[in-house]
């Protein structure tokens, strides 16, 4: 923060300034979070007419429930595949865009479109492409001999949502990778070239290591995205199916709480998710803070 000598002293102006944010945060964030915590210790009926305090039973149940553990596994698979696919593709495109002078602006303009598209819509678009009856991609795959049907095959459904999720993130990753690449001093690359290193070698020995702060940052962002922002993709397309093959944790919270009306169980899942976000956030914040200190 700004040192004392440069700070203003005012009796109540600062409070006035922070009041809106703090009020809304308390009412819409902290209070519901506390409620979720409280509810996770209860077993109650849907209408709230009878409640039973059960300590950690809901949590014990979750951690031994094959359904929950399956959902956890699904989320890990989904998050890692989406992250690697999206970051890999965008790194490739960024490296190519960095090399090219003519038309760079045009490529950039076209590649940032997915950023503006809602995850839910991305899901719908890819769902349409993969529709077993009329989808163009499904048609191509079926012509090649594989009977594509994401209503029936869990793996097909997973591929569908991974494609949609990765596609959506390409723009974001691309922009950051490009910025990262462009901040690498040319002198380093020239020096390596003079030493006889091929472009390929230059990339792996000079560029990639220097890109690691960006890569790490994007890794965290992409994983958080895959965990939470992809709710729309799942809800708009597979609804967690078939047979729970795409039921990521955040979708399960919604499904059990809203549709199943199991409030205690859903609250317990929320609490566990809060812990996971907390870890990611601390990771990200610590890292970003470090950068700012420089």
């Amino acid at each position, binding site marked *: 923060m700004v040192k004392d000598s440069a700070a203003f*002293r005012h009796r109540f102006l*600062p409070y006035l300034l922070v009041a809106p944010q703090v009020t809304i945060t308390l009412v819409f964030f902290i209070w519901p979070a506390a409620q979720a915590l409280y509810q996770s210790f209860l077993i109650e009926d849907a209408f709230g007419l009878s409640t039973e305090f059960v300590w950690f039973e809901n949590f014990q149940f979750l951690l031994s429930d094959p359904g929950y553990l399956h959902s956890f596994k699904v989320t890990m698979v989904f998050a890692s595949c989406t992250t690697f696919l999206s970051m890999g593709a965008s790194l*490739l495109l960024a490296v190519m865009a960095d090399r090219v002078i003519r038309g760079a602006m045009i490529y950039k303009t076209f590649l940032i479109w997915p950023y503006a*598209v809602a995850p839910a819509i991305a899901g719908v*678009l890819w769902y349409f492409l993969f529709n077993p*009856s009329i989808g163009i991609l499904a048609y191509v795959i079926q012509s090649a001999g594989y009977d594509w049907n994401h209503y029936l095959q869990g793996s097909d459904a997973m591929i569908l949502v991974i494609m949609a999720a990765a596609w959506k993130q390409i723009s974001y990753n691309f922009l950051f990778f490009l910025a990262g690449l462009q901040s690498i001093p*040319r002198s380093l690359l020239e020096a390596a070239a003079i030493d006889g290193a091929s472009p390929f070698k230059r990339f792996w020995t000079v560029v990639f290591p220097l890109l690691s702060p960006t890569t790490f940052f994007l890794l965290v962002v992409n994983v958080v995205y895959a965990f939470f922002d992809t*709710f729309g993709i799942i809800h*708009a397309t597979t609804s967690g199916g078939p047979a729970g093959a795409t039921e990521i944790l955040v979708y399960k919270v919604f499904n059990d709480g809203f549709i199943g009306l199991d409030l205690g169980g859903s609250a317990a899942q929320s609490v566990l998710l809060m812990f996971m976000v907390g870890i990611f956030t601390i990771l990200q914040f610590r890292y970003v803070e470090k950068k700012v200190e420089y």
Partner: protein
Amino acid sequence: MVENRPILRFLSHLILILGVLCVFLPIWIAFVASTHAPHELLSAPIPWLPGDQFIQNYSEVLQEGVSGSDSISVAKMLFNSMIMALSIAIGKISISILAAYAIVYFQFPFRMTVFWIVFMTLMLPVEVRIVPTFSVIASLGLLNSYAGLSIPLIASATATFLFRQFFMTIPKELVEAAKMDRAGPLKFFRDILLPLSRTNLAALFVILFTYGWNQYLWPLLVTSDESYATIVVSIQKMMTAAESEPQWHLIMATSVLAMIPPVLVVIFMQKAFVKGLVDTEK
């Protein structure tokens, strides 16, 4: 580029073009599908090129919405989304810049407490407080209202932190100079800080408008009254319309319409957006 290797340059362009085509494929097919009559979309392969039903489909969807899902006209949905996105973007920017300003430039008791309270919101995305937040909104009577759609989303910490980081890079000589000129804190804010923050404001507007426009889970929970439906959420409703197959030509037309505003905002403010996005996150 260090040396001149034509093969590599050709390869680079090739990969980029392929990349753009892959990235664009879903959008293109959506547009194509939105310009055909329903019977042309009943079996694979559907056409690759646009059809002749552009005006027909788009006016149908804008005026009537999609039947069977009991929806309002897509024009009304666009309006709802616009209100929500603008409220969220403007609301978030306003609240966050004020809070960041206070945290950075003022010494007051509980400053760190405030900082941590705001920080906590980073750990509490909507998805982890779904059911209780819904109850809170319900008991405040804010369901099915523009207020309910936007207010809960304008207090998250990301914008505050971005402003905070930016403010910390502003040389403190400016503040000292202002103090010496006997300029009050509000004058300093309005005359010095705001103009300096212009690029950040533009970038944040793009980011937050897109964020607000593309909201899905929150509007899904908070509105069941179709007159408040936003366009992004409605698309899912169209696909699960009871007892009939999805009317793809209309769904795709709606999807295209849903994509246009944020895409326009991103493209037209591209320079500021990219700069702001990358600079402030670092």
